[in-house]
């Protein structure tokens, strides 16, 4: 049996986080009543003219800078012609030969290895409306309903080179891109609402064959899980087809999550016959150096740079740094916690954020932004572990209290509940003397060489103080008394 190589390229449509549409002053708000956000430009009444939204261009520039691409000083809008009822003009305004963002790359992590995915381009375009085929009244049988609220929403279409070699790599890329567009604030990344959708171009070829196999394009993958399933299925289908002596025909396919299968959508005859030409309504877009420089100066620290800094300055492991820079919200939460707890507690902050906090959020199915315990509170808590005021075990109790809202700050809860570790030798001394007197048998065992008996004595001391004794101090004092 032949060995096959999988080749995947991804096209992503990211809805840009602008208030108004790309070529009109209609709102881009999601979820309004049908056709409420569809003005004369959006529904393509005769005589209207598109005027480009400055913020949409800025989003494209931000993206280009974040992936190290070049920003075209001059780019051109083109008409992509096709007939569909939710495309009122009969063409989509897009960019073709001269896109606004050219090249660039994205670093992805697959398992333990890293890979650089080359980007071909990113271009601005308008979204189409939506067609509703179901849910209309009985007597509208045989009709489709058209809602043009989405028509004209700005999109950035981001296209990779065919660099990806497995479904896992494709998903890792999609995740990294999703995190990045949210990080730089150009897209809300809401996949349920369709703000971030991927198309995967998939082909297979025998290992060693220099040219690519024929590809099929899986459209509109709006979850990472579906992307994985769809590509896995498509790859198996293509290999099975070829091994049975068949051949792959270029096609656009849809993934059906219910059956887990992909099926061909458009007939080959009509596909990709878009008759692009420059849009005479829109002069070329020019972007000068000053504008680009200004946007560059406003970019936040990017995830890769922050990751390196967390490793170098805070001493985090590569894994911890990667998890924490997984989203802007998590990274910001963590930085706030460290600012409160102090840099010497940076590792402990990472442990708490990725450990107890993450576990609790996960259990209650909440995002970091919805955490009942604020970054400030976690920082305050970690600071008290760091300076020896409380033990880690007691800290968990304080964390529970913060989670349930039983206090506003760790310090307040510690003081109110009397949770400070007992570290002073005087009070521990008396307590330990009593303990030794009451547990003569254990003392004898220890002196007979049983180390276990020592641990039991420490346990007794912790129990006697309801966990508040500083275990290290107890251990030190006990050794002094017994040895």
């Amino acid at each position: 049996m032949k060995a096959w190589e999988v080749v995947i390229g991804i096209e992503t449509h990211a809805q840009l986080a602008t208030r108004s549409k790309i070529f009109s002053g209609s709102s881009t708000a999601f979820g309004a009543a049908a056709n409420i956000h569809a003005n004369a430009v959006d529904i393509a009444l005769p005589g209207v003219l598109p005027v480009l939204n400055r913020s949409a261009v800025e989003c494209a520039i931000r993206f280009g800078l974040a992936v190290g691409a070049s920003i075209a000083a001059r780019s051109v809008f083109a008409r992509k012609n096709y007939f569909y009822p939710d495309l009122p003009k009969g063409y989509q305004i897009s960019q073709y030969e001269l896109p606004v963002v050219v090249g660039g790359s994205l670093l992805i992590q697959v398992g333990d290895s890293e890979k650089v995915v080359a980007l071909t381009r990113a271009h601005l375009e308008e979204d189409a409306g939506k067609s509703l085929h179901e849910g209309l009244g009985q007597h509208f049988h045989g009709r489709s309903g058209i809602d043009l609220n989405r028509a004209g929403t700005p999109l950035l279409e981001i296209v990779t080179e065919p660099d990806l070699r497995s479904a896992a790599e494709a998903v890792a890329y999609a995740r990294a891109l999703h995190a990045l567009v949210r990080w730089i604030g150009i897209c809300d990344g809401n996949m349920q609402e369709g703000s971030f959708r991927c198309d995967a171009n998939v082909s297979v070829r025998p290992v060693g064959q220099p040219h690519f196999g024929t590809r099929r394009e899986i459209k509109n993958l709006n979850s990472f899980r579906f992307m994985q399933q769809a590509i896995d299925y498509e790859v198996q289908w293509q290999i099975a087809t070829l091994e049975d002596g068949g051949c792959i025909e270029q096609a656009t396919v849809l993934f059906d999550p219910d059956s887990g299968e992909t099926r061909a959508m458009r007939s080959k005859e009509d596909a990709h016959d878009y008759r692009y030409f420059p849009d005479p309504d829109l002069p070329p877009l020019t972007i000068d150096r000053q504008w680009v420089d200004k946007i560059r100066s406003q970019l936040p620290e990017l995830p890769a740079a922050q990751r390196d800094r967390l490793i170098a300055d805070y001493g985090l492991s590569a894994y911890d740094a990667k998890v924490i820079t997984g989203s802007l919200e998590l990274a910001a939460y963590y930085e706030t916690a460290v600012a409160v707890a102090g840099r010497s507690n940076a590792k402990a902050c990472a442990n708490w954020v990725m450990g107890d906090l993450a576990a609790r959020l996960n259990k209650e199915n909440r995002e970091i932004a919805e955490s009942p315990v604020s970054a400030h509170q976690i920082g305050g808590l970690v600071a008290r572990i760091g300076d020896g005021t409380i033990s880690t075990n007691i800290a968990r109790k304080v964390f529970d209290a913060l989670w349930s809202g039983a206090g506003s700050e760790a310090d307040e809860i510690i003081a109110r509940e009397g949770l400070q570790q007992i570290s002073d030798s005087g009070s521990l001394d008396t307590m330990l003397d009593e303990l030794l007197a009451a547990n003569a048998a254990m003392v004898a065992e220890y002196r007979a060489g049983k180390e276990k008996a020592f641990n039991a004595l420490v346990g007794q001391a912790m129990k006697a103080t309801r966990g508040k004794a500083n275990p290290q101090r107890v251990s030190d004092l006990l050794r002094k008394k017994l040895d």
Partner: protein
Amino acid sequence: MSLTLEQVLRVAHLARIEVNEVEAHATLGRLNEIFTLIEEMQAIDTKGVEPMAQAQDVAQRLRADRVTESDQLAQRSAFQAIAPETEAGLYLVPKVLE
């Protein structure tokens, strides 16, 4: 270069324009005249000339990202008054499924 009748019918289909056989033949003739004209123009040496994307030598004007619409319900009613069929705010069209 000249077009075939099949190409004319295909382009008409892509644009959803209904043409009968007589119209298709007439259109073929007219389109081929345009192609002849293009062929003549292609004889001109344009080496080193940057292609234009627009007849006017101007740059794109940009608008601020502001929502400028108000009273959209009245606007929708006005637009839908001239639509052949609407329902619950939707424009109705013959069923399209891929």
